[in-house]
């Protein structure tokens, strides 16, 4: 399926079945029988799995609620635009969502740089952005009035990693970070986490977004003989780095942030290289149904596709969609963006199926949940 096809189908369904979205209501994106939501993310290219897996999880949640009659009788229609994890394309997509599609809200943008490039457009049109897939501080502190985070911050993830590494005697940490807002946020997070221990990274190397050119960074990091390496990039770049780095006969513990795309990273690495690779996660373990949200997610996936594989990104998409659905429900039968945002802020300390988060006007940081996982070489499974 071509990347634009889902978007076109979404728009087509919206126009044919529900008429012009704005024909019966003044609020953008709200039709008599529909609510238009926009998502710009990487659906193709080197980071394409990030958006695809998130979208898959969200789809299960939207399909379920639509099958039950929608939210206050309105079907949730999602329009997707592929930005390839490139900020310029994300900004163009956001402009189209705002001016052309006139969506009610934006949802699940993937990446820090892509979100940052879209913020001015959000501001201009007053469109809320729900559950972006980034843990960057720039949209958390100070609080951005239009951005509602669900996942924990990168700084929390990194603090947990540093704590874990210190606990088990690995103090020499190197960092390889993407040369953009995401990578710099990761670097700041590491410096902040190491500061109380009066330590600094033993090596700091940059890599380009969506690039597999990591040989030189691997060589330089290996020269510094770290005990652990923190990679702050997406799966394709990190997989490339790991391949080059392990060729240099190195044994340092490698860690990735949740944004990496865990399943995609597992698929991108051969069995011996992926064994023991660490990934911090900001959602519960998708294979542990003891938490109600995970159980619901598993059931939704199995009902839609018995062959579907569980994963962290799709669970995050499912949870983000549940948050969106709940806020739409609480915004009432005639939702406005203002009522929708107020509904989100009124959630305060709440939970989605046992997954706690905080949402208020003064605190949009969402969840503080972080956990460590490790990849298993044999089958690419995870332990937590």
């Amino acid at each position, binding site marked *: 399926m071509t990347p634009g096809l889902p978007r076109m189908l979404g728009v087509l369904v919206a126009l044919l079945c529900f008429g012009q979205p704005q024909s019966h209501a003044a609020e953008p994106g709200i039709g008599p029988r529909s609510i238009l939501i926009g998502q710009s993310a990487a659906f193709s290219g080197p980071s394409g799995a990030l958006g695809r897996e998130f979208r898959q999880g969200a789809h299960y949640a939207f399909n379920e609620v639509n099958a039950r009659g929608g939210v206050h009788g309105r079907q949730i229609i999602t329009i997707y635009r592929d930005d390839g994890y490139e900020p310029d394309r994300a900004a163009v997509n956001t402009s189209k969502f705002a001016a052309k599609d006139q969506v009610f809200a934006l949802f699940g943008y993937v990446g820090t740089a892509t979100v940052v490039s879209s913020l001015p457009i959000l501001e201009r049109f007053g469109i809320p952005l729900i559950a972006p897939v980034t843990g960057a501080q720039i949209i958390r502190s100070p609080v951005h009035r239009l951005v509602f985070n669900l996942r924990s911050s990168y700084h929390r993830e990194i603090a947990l990693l540093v704590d874990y590494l210190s606990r088990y005697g690995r103090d020499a940490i190197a960092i390889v970070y993407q040369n953009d807002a995401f990578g710099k946020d990761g670097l700041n997070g590491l410096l902040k986490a190491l500061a109380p221990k009066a330590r600094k990274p033993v090596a700091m190397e940059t890599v380009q977004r969506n690039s597999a050119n990591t040989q030189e960074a691997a060589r330089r990091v290996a020269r510094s003989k770290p005990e652990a390496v923190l990679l702050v990039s997406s799966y394709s770049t990190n997989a490339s780095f790991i391949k080059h780095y392990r060729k240099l006969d190195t044994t340092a513990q490698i860690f990735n942030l949740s944004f990496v795309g865990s399943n995609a990273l597992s698929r991108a690495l051969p069995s011996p290289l992926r064994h*023991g690779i660490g990934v911090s996660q900001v959602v519960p373990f998708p294979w542990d149904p003891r938490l109600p949200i995970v159980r619901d997610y598993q059931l939704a996936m199995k009902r839609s596709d018995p062959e579907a594989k569980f994963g962290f990104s799709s669970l995050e998409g499912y949870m983000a969609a549940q948050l969106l659905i709940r806020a739409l429900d609480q915004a009432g039968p005639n939702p406005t963006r203002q009522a929708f945002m107020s509904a989100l802020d009124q959630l305060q300390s709440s939970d989605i199926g046992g997954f706690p988060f905080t949402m208020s006007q003064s605190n949009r940081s969402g969840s503080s949940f972080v956990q460590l996982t490790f990849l298993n070489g*044999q089958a690419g499974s995870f332990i937590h």
Partner: protein
Amino acid sequence: MTAAALLLSRRLSTHKHSVLQPGLLSPLGSLYIFTTAFLLSNVIFQTNNLKTAVTQEVVTFSKLGAVLNVLPQQQRVEGRRLLFDYAYSITHDEAATMKKGLRSDNSQAAIDRLREFLSSSSAALPEAPAVTPESANYLRRASDFSFDLIDARERRLSLASSSNSPVLWLSIGVMYFTFAFLSFSVHRGASSLLWLTFILLFAFPVPAVMLFLYSNPLAAGLYDLAAQFAPILARNM
């Protein structure tokens, strides 16, 4: 060996020294058959024992992985990481070295790290753990299972170690040579010589193959160690 037996029987027959009778073949043949049957039963016994030992080891792995669930997140993931490192080293290192009857240094290091973790305060429960059936028995079970892992490994290594005894090989060789020599010495008629040679050549490898299989079921390919561990390594835990 068959050729040597044939040549020797021809030579002794030429010199008219042969006092051998066909009736001698029967007890010797029986002995040969019993030896083959004994080795075959040992092959089956050895392989079954190895399967049982590895199954027990895999069960212990699963139990230990489950028991660690009561630990706080960082301790739990470290414990499971070490546990799965060990399982991974078995499938990727020890499964290969065991074919040569050797243990793997990597697996030894991995189990040592796991033991070190389980014997340290890193594997201890927090001061006020939630009381559950698993947490109530955690300390004893974690300790038991870790020792069970060591036992299981030693048992597996022992069962797969080479029992390739030269004396056994020599015994089979002597028995076969005697049997072949006797058969050639007492056979009548040129046409039966071809059949006899064919039967002897066919019969000879049977106990030898059994002995080879018996000596190490892993090396013989009777048992795939990695495949037994694959299900637990494929689990998301």
